[in-house]
């Protein structure tokens, strides 16, 4: 709604320019940065995209992202267990995670619909408590592929499963084009574009419009005959589904499947990315997702090698955490201040 560039964007753009300056000074190859930035955009972009339906429907930021992520991880595990390879393996994982995400999303929605007005904090703790619950499952799950299990004892899944012999980089390397020292992952970008397009089209349908209406003014939507609970439920399910897809894309790009406590904090960088893009609660557009993820992830990307050059590798991680939480805090305060003003 507000085309003005706000402090978080200004800050992150300034920070990015500064870091690119340092990167050039340190002679970190530009081609590598751009290629990796494109990969990271999609790698995290789908997860960020998953926040959109819930934001649009007025449910708030989905801090319960781990729920969707776990659904995706289950799909990935099934796919690895069946030893599916290449694109087949990745699409297999997506297909398997679909029904799981549907069921988990339905339950998650039932919880969030009970706590209207307090969704974000409840979602945070539902997500947090779901992780140790799933740890039980990972430690006892009846998977049979020895590549996934602890080498000693052969019981329980490993915390990190390499996907190299299955579908690591399957989508990354699809239709990869090399231009000079630039690598452009066309397949990956097309996949992301397709997902974004589907999401935009979804919000053009009647049901999508109803979702936006519920987000804008639930009372008004109810009066015009929209079943608010039903619409919110589907927004939450949709978020969970896209999050499951998101972790599939993330895992193949990363090359490893991280289980146990790995998804615990995943919601925060994603939330931060969409807020950097300029999302302001209910007014979230596709542009916010893409621009936000790109800016945020590129800062993440460049900070690593720079910190290594400075011989202080921890600094990168601390800075990332600071930026992530600083942006979320700013957004909360900014939105809160606006609400108080209108009262």
């Amino acid at each position: 709604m507000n085309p003005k560039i706000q402090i978080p964007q200004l800050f992150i753009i300034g920070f990015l320019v500064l870091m690119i300056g340092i990167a050039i000074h340190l002679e970190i190859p530009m081609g590598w940065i751009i290629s990796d930035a494109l990969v990271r955009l999609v790698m995290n972009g789908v997860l960020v995209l998953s926040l959109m339906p819930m934001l649009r429907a007025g449910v708030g930021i989905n801090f319960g992202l781990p729920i969707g992520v776990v659904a995706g991880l289950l799909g990935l595990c099934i796919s690895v267990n069946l030893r599916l390879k290449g694109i087949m393996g990745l699409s297999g994982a997506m297909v398997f995670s679909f029904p799981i995400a549907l069921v988990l999303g339905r339950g998650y929605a039932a919880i969030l619909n009970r706590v209207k007005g307090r969704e974000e904090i409840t979602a945070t703790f539902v997500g947090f408590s779901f992780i140790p619950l799933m740890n039980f499952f990972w430690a006892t799950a009846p998977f049979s592929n020895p590549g996934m299990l602890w080498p000693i004892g052969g019981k329980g899944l490993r915390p990190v499963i390499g996907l190299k012999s299955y579908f690591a980089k399957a989508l990354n390397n699809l239709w990869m084009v090399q231009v000079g020292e630039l690598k452009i992952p066309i397949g990956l970008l097309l996949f992301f574009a397709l997902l974004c397009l589907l999401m935009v089209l979804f919000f053009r349908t009647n049901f999508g419009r109803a979702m936006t209406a519920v987000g804008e003014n639930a009372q008004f939507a109810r009066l015009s005959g929209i079943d608010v609970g039903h619409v919110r439920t589907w927004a939450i399910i949709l978020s969970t589904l896209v999050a499951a897809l998101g972790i599939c894309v993330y895992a193949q790009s990363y090359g490893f499947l991280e289980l146990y406590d790995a998804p615990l904090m995943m919601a925060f960088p994603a939330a931060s990315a969409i807020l950097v893009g300029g999302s302001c609660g209910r007014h979230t557009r596709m542009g916010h997702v893409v621009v936000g993820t790109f800016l945020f992830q590129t800062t993440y990307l460049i900070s690593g090698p720079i910190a290594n050059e400075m011989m202080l590798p921890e600094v990168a991680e601390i800075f990332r955490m600071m930026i992530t939480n600083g942006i979320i805090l700013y957004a909360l305060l900014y939105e809160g201040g606006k609400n108080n003003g209108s009262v």
Partner: protein
Amino acid sequence: MAVFKRVPLIFVILCCVAFYYADMSFPFVLNQVITRFIRDGVMVLALIIPIRAGMGVNFSIVVGALCAQVGLILALDLGLGSISGLVFMAFTGVTLSVIVGVIIGLCLNRVKNREMITTIIIGFLATSIYQLVFMVGYGTVISPSNPEIMLSRGIGIRNMVDLELFRNLLDTLWLLQVGKIEIPVFMILLVAAFAVGVHYITMTRLGKQFTVVGQDHEKAMTLGINVGRVRIKAIVISTLIACMGHLFYILNIGMLNVYTAQMNTDIFSCAALFAGGATLVNARVGHAFLGILLFHSLFILSPQAGQNVFGNPALGEYFRSFVAYGTIGLALILNAKHRDLGHPNFSVSNQVIKNKG
């Protein structure tokens, strides 16, 4: 309200089951629980006042804990020992926590209805700023005067700092031995003193203001209460108590994990409070004490019980974290329903509240 008595009951049952399977001796468990009680007791008390003031759980007690750690590291850096060091770190911690308490209070006044998520994020942000200062700032911008606490590369404080100067200063005071059970009377009295203090605050005029603000902002305003100020006071008191609580915690352990000691203090304290039967609208000292006993008994018993039943101690660990997070989640879900029934205003969407205001 009878509904919420279920939570402590569930904990009692879980504790009994875990005790049956863990096969630990009762004096051992009791000793452990007493230790946990004096370590974490004050921290849990810090949560009570913000809840009474209607601000929900103050997860930014982590910031109070960080203030205590800053005071401690400064005392070590300056080489202050024993009583003078104690006084110095308490004074620094309290000053700092009052300042950050005011800042947090100002932030929270902008985000009415979303205080809890904001306090979580404030806790995360403060943790990374703290890490930046002590991992990077020390040795580059700030020059340390005590090289013993520094990493060998000259930048950053060591991960683990020994508190030899302060060990056994407080917790062995007036130690009472009853059979196999050790009772550190002084520390228990100290925790009790804080409890009485918190209880006393809720009885004073300020305490009544907290309660009114917690029930209804408009009512408070018509009574001539400055809602914003009262809320800031609640957070300042909470941060201050948290700072003191964490100081006792670290001193009791006898060494400081510089970068991780503050982790999860908020989650565990909050879970303990809810385990004792507190709700998002009502918390008392009694809830805190019952909660600490139940929650920490379960915490001590569950890894061993997991080992004995499933042959895998990790499962007990997972169960512990699940209980910690799950208790908070459950309390949030149950409370929402209570609010829906009790106060019709809370069941409608934010939009209507906004229009009404």
